[in-house]
């Protein structure tokens, strides 16, 4: 019997593009504030501050929707790491990106109803969604609720640790976004993955 499932349901697509927009604005405004120079800024400081605060909250809401959505629905299955043979699978996927892709090899882990991500995607997305983003959110919220932060930590302003952490994670997530956009072109066709995330994609499988 054949079954058809939607790999990218509407809520995932809305969440994804809201995240994408938030990321772009947060990166631009964060960069602008961190490297602010009188008379040579990307975005005026106060505008950047307001935008950064607003889209930071949008990102927090998005993350909460992501967590609850995955707990309630079936999408969470794609984030369940199977540790058995993980290293070998990661190596296979890395070899594909490093060698096979140039030779026209087939994708070693095509999407299935239980695993729409390849092993590298799964580990990276897991780290981003359950590691980097929560830390980014917590360190960002520290600026909103600075009264809760100790005044001094290791002889420095209590906000120093959260500030530096926020910057470092922001840089890594910017690098992630560049890699993520690029690898989206490495699907079956160059624009195929973008279309899937815009318009959805169904997967038909033979159910035994």
């Amino acid at each position, binding site marked *: 019997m054949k079954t058809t499932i939607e790999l990218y349901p509407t809520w995932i697509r809305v969440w994804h593009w809201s995240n994408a927009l938030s990321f772009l604005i947060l990166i631009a405004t964060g960069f602008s504030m961190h490297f602010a120079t009188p008379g040579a800024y990307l975005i005026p400081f106060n505008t950047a501050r307001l935008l950064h605060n607003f889209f930071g909250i949008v990102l927090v809401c998005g993350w909460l929707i992501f967590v609850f959505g995955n707990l309630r629905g079936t999408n969470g299955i794609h984030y369940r790491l199977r540790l058995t043979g993980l290293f070998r699978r990661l190596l296979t996927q890395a070899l594909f990106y490093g060698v096979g892709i*140039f030779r*026209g090899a087939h994708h070693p882990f095509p999407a299935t109803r239980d695993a729409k991500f390849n092993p590298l995607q799964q580990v990276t997305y897991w780290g981003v969604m359950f590691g980097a983003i929560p830390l980014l959110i917590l360190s960002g919220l520290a600026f909103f609720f600075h009264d809760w932060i100790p005044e001094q930590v290791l002889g420095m302003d209590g906000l120093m640790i959260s500030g530096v952490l926020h910057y470092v994670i922001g840089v890594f997530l910017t690098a992630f976004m560049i890699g993520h956009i690029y690898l989206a072109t490495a699907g079956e066709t160059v624009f195929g993955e973008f279309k899937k995330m815009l318009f959805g994609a169904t997967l038909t499988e033979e159910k035994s």
Partner: protein
Amino acid sequence: MKRIQSIQVRGAVSGHLLPGQLPGSILVMNTSMRRHLPLLLATLAFLSTTTVQAESGQEAGCMRCHSMKTLAYLDSKTGGVRNLSIDPDAMARSDHKKLGCRSCHGAGFEVYPHFKEARLERLECLNCHKENIDFPHELFESIERSFERSVHFQTLPDSFTCFSCHDPHDFRSLSKQPNEELTTVVARDNGVCRRCHDTPNEIYSKTGRKFSPLVATHAWLPEAERHWDNVRCVECHTGPKSNRSHFILGRNDAVRACEACHSQNSLLVAKLYRHRLREEKRSGTLTNSSVMNNAYVIGLTRHPWLDWGGIALIVMTFLGVTGHGLARWLFTRRDPHENHH
């Protein structure tokens, strides 16, 4: 009801403001307080347990009265109490700690009760600071010029003096406090401004104008209280290209651009952190530690390693994906059919 015009307190010159006394220490009183003022002052003065600082001869004599915390009189002109008290501890910490009372105060104060001439004494900071070879002449000339251009002097040329802000008995220059907590320095410095600008009655008695509360005039400033805890009013209320803290700017001319401080070339480096950074340079401590060890200031609190590390990571990622994409394109171009195998 009999209105009290003046109060004579032992040790003070009755009903007159001695030149050099601080207008900033006036307390504006309501009617009930005025009625009980003589009793209150006299009682407190005699009960005061403040110790007289052990000083030699003349100073000890002066401080017997002037170290009393309640030594004051009612100024009939302003209706405020003139404080004649000097905190011996503050004096001992001040930049003027080595000076005797008579170094500044003249012959009229030689004995008690003070001579009438004492009333006529006009103290000028610049008498010492500009004409003395121990001090950099150019600096104090520049201070004088800045002061004369300040909004304070421009608005109140007859009554605004050095003593309106600086208490010579408690004055400590920023440059001589390299080890003091910066928040303490900031609180003390801002206290001078807030003594008038955060006290509507006080400023009304001096200018006849009603100023809006600071919170209202600074409503545009995000996290205003946090700013006031960590930076001095003069960081913004003096010229952007100047470290002359005496050229005080009014609200229309003050710095409003956030980037002026929130950047690596921050005004804070030129003003608040100036002396500490100079000290760091001299002693060869870790570059930027003054900036890194104080309040976290977005745009300023940056470490070059982290900045370059971040830029390098982004550039390498970009170059990596560009190279990979280019290689993919070249291989596909070389053998367009291979992808279908």
